[in-house]
């Protein structure tokens, strides 16, 4: 295994961890950019498959996705470096820089900065759903699945797991075999 690739995996996922602010799907646009656009490690469909698996398995979604993407890109070592990369920013910030972090977070300017950043985050997540959607919504049945589940998930607070299960079931029924 090339050391350069392992280093790249670590740095990529370090960046993803460092700029994922607020949790949830905040990491999707960053991961999409790093994994698909910048490094071309996989295409959009494979990426969506991995996000689905990461969502269906226990544990934090971005750590799950890091392990999976790391493995498909660089084998066992790749998965270790990607996983370490995504958790390192948290460890460094909390263990080494917690005093500084507290001061920064309590500063009123930090709130303004974070609010502006979150506006950008929403724009990016919206954009990611369009770009990734192009490889997922490819015909009438998949468009129907998308529309039905979008309405369902916007209007309810049901766990994402059920929507993925619903998607899987509808896929089995509607797939053009």
């Amino acid at each position, binding site marked *: 295994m090339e050391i350069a690739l392992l280093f790249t995996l670590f740095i990529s996922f370090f960046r993803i961890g460092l700029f994922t602010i607020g949790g949830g799907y905040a990491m999707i646009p960053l991961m999409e950019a790093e994994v698909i656009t910048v490094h071309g490690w996989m295409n959009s469909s494979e990426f969506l498959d991995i996000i689905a698996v990461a969502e269906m398995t226990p*544990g*934090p979604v971005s750590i799950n996705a890091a392990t999976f993407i790391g*493995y498909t890109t660089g084998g066992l070592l790749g998965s270790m470096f990607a996983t370490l990369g995504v958790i390192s920013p948290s460890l460094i910030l909390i263990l080494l820089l917690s005093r500084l972090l507290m001061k920064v977070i309590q500063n009123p300017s930090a709130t303004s900065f974070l*609010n502006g950043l979150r506006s950008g985050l929403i724009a990016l997540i919206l954009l990611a759903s369009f770009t990734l959607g192009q490889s997922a919504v490819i015909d009438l049945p998949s468009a129907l699945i998308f529309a039905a589940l979008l309405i369902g998930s916007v209007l309810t607070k049901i766990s994402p797991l059920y929507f993925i299960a619903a998607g*899987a079931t509808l896929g089995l029924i509607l797939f053009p075999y």
Partner: protein
Amino acid sequence: MQNQKTENSNSLSLWTILVTFLKIGAFTFGGGYAILPVIKREIVENRKWVNDNVFSDILIITQGMPGQLALNSSIQIGVRLRGTLGGITAAMGVTIPSFLILLTIAAYLYPLIRDNIYMEAVFYGIRPAVVALIATAAIKMGRTILHGWNGIILCAVLLVTAIITGVHPILILLIGGLAGLVVCKGACKQ
């Protein structure tokens, strides 16, 4: 604020911290917002390692800092219990189950099922489901975060900028943050 809980911190072994967070990592589905209530129940209610106020403090810090919510709050709890080693132990606890489970799937399960026609059908339906969840995340975040015109206009401008220029998302986030210093002074407060 790290010294609030020193009374019982020396009595807690790193092993106990590790096992507790291993359990949280291994049995909680659905990412940060699903894991936080489980961490609260286990750490605050069952084990009483930190009290409600300390846990709220941790959440406030966590939401304003980079990284996975569940991971960040676990590290902070670990630090309060046993200092730096406690933090590292808690991080290992929530990460190891994910790592082992996904490694097993990526290495053994995924190659087996990838070329199966029924699995192809399953993922054909799952992909639009995941995209729907991502779009929902944007819509729900927008509803809670974008209060006032400043935030909405900034979001629209950044969306157009991202589409036209295709720059790295990190740049969009940083531009958004810097613009926030000017236009979000209290106006787009959550």
